[in-house]
């Protein structure tokens, strides 16, 4: 049995400890917002937070998160209220939408560490996340917009 916290809730899972966190989240815990894209930390679709840091959950054995705090897209906000979610909606970022959970989770770490990111900061933080639909220009705009919202005092 492995115990950890997901989106503020303690969970105990009985799985092979080498199972990647991604599949435990998706199949054992029903949190399907985190996506599978490559299985080798190449595309970022599976990005979650582990104790606040971005983690590619497709290559992280669940044993690694024992006793720690995991946040998934479902835990980013309860009500679409995170500035990034609001900015994503305002810029109409998603197309197919499949990679967007990972994009948002990567962007959330960036904004916490650099509340006013430059384009270069965005390049560095977001280059691990592939979007096949080509939403990059809108992701960039949305990150800047979210940064503006946060500067303006919004949460």
């Amino acid at each position: 049995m492995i115990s950890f916290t997901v989106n503020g809730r303690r969970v105990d899972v009985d799985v092979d400890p080498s199972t990647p966190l991604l599949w435990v989240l998706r199949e054992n815990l029903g949190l399907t917002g985190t996506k599978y894209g490559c299985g080798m930390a190449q595309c970022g679709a599976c990005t979650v937070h582990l104790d606040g840091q971005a983690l590619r959950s497709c290559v992280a054995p669940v044993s690694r998160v024992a006793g720690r705090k995991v946040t998934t897209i479902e835990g980013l906000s309860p009500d679409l209220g995170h500035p990034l979610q609001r900015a994503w909606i305002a810029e109409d970022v998603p197309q197919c939408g499949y990679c967007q959970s990972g994009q948002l989770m990567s962007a959330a770490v960036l904004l916490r560490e650099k509340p006013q990111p430059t384009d270069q900061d965005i390049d560095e933080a977001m280059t691990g996340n592939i979007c096949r639909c080509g939403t990059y220009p809108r992701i960039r705009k949305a990150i800047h917009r979210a940064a503006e919202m946060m500067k303006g005092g919004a949460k």
Partner: protein
Amino acid sequence: MSASLLERREFLKFSLTASGGLLVGLYIPNGAKDAFARETSGTAFMPNAFVRIGNDERITVIVNHSEMGQGVYTSLPMLLAEELDADWNKVGFEPAPVDPKYNHPAFGMQMTGGSSSVWSGFEQFRNAGAAARAMLIAAAAEKWNADPATLRTDSGAVLDRNNRKLTYGQLAETAARMKPPEKVALKDPKTFKLIGKPKSRLDTPEKVNGKAIFGLDVKQPGMLTAVVARPPIFGAKLRSFDDSRTRSMPGVRRVVAVPSGVAVIADTFWQAKVARDALKVDWDEGAMASFNTAQMMQQFRERAQSPGKQVRHDGDPDGALASAAKKIEAVYEVPYVPHAMMEPLNCAVDLRSDSCEIWTGTQFQTVDRAAAAKVAALPDEKVKINTTYLGGGFGRRANPQSDFVVEAVHIAKAAGAPVKVVWTREDDMQGGFYRPAFVHAIAGGIDANGKALTFRSRIVGQSIMAGTMFATMMGLDKKGYDPASVEGLDDLPYDIPNIGVESHQAEINVPVQWWRSVGHSHTAFAKECFIDELAGVAGRDPYQFRRDLLQKQPRHLGVLDLAAQKAGWGKPLPEGRGRGIAVHASFESYAAQVAEVSVTDGLVRVHKLVCAIDCGRYVNPGIIAAQTEGAAIFAASAALFQELTFDGGRLQQTNFHTLPMMRMNECPEIETHIVENNEKSGGIGEPGVPCTAPAIANAVFAATGKRIRKLPIRMTEAV
């Protein structure tokens, strides 16, 4: 599916090319009677197959096209809501079940592709909205005992002359008893409140909180997961397999041979995947075991030396070559490329003795249902397909053989429980159905005045249609070539007196399929690079040279001028940078792009792409811009990075580390400029693709003096 309907697609395409205005009558679906059959359930009012109005004021638009990122869950509801005079804030959407009444009005089957959803739904969804509106008015007239002609609608309510008001929700029950109108009048476009406006996409909220359900996310009670060991070489046959280790692995329920390989069925994906990887499979490798793409391309190049099947012949292209004042020949090459949607293929099936329920992200509902029914030995009507969100499509999820659906039904037969088949990224990339590789050998000449005199193109590559149900329908045998291999060259718009287009069809046992923009994805590259080369021979500016040759093509000229002007064509650039231009029509839309690039240490950096798009009357300009940006990035990824190669019959690329995608740090600044006009709607999902590769290649020439004739662009191989 009937052959005549597919032929009509051809007819539609060609009649569109010939003249713009012929089609309106054909938009009305043959099944209009069906589609307008009144359906009611509970307190909801369902005046026709495309809309349901609840007494809670919610308006649900039933969308017969799949949402794969192109925005149909927003643009098609906008069409219906416009004529319904709905309150846009109350409008939602729902994917249509599979039913003939949801067939594509032009293609005669339920499907999404060919950049056709908006133009084919333009009248269909508006008619459905207008019919519902008429019934709501009739309901209000009955309640008020008023003349319907005195009533009007606004934002989800019927009003009378005294501004007495009944909302659509209040009228839903009564409206359900009203007779559907025989005919409806549509709004004057000048009065549109939604169509043409930048409305936010309706599917965005659930795509930013993880709630959107894609095929891979489907879970049904008791559902198992299967991962399949498929042949490592196309055409290889299963000899035997050793599952002694696999069978005893945790969670494994069954290991079964199916026509596509060996399926490992387990409780979870990870268990199935680990167990699949532990399988020992012996394959009879077959004839493709010695296949390699380097040899294939060499054979293509050799074949391009001789005349092919004639596709187009204006004047005397060969004779004019002999008499040209100056001439040039060039060979262009494009590789196999995969669709590589972010969501790998998957399909979930619950097969019972008298029913089959499927959940998948598909572009091809009618074909998939028929194929599934055949495997399940059930009538089509017993097969239900739930269309989930598609994590990208790009053509791959419209498979004429329904490969990923057929396989899943076979596995469901063996599973004895609902089962979801999941392809790993490697399975997806190695699973075939790529954009075929092509060689284009083009020769051209100019006369003594520097005017283009002749253009002769020979195209060598595999047919997408050959061997599929579409071959006869598209008239392949009759023509002797595949129209999808030559589209974009067969209608070469340049005013050149001598034009030859010839096709050589290659028979290679690598499964190929339509890939975003289909034939245009390679014909535009060859054509627009060659026109640049011809301009060079003539000593002319490539933009002006095109202008002169497009004087009779106002819409080509319109986008060309717009892109050039917005990009500041001719204005000085920083040292080391170059601009390239391309123009191309596809899917009844017109596109031009200007790329600005630099090359450092052999690496091409695209700094900026300025795109002009003329897709006629559009529904949502935000989506037009998003599709144009996305198409350019999709195309730039392929032009700069992507190539599938085979050696010893095995694909050498497996995942994103060997098949790179454009990433944030490589993404250029992109500007999109939309031409405003009132032409009939064209496509938007694909027309942004074709210009990007040649615009970048031509810009590389401007920056470095090196011609690019091969994709992906590798400076070490530049001519």
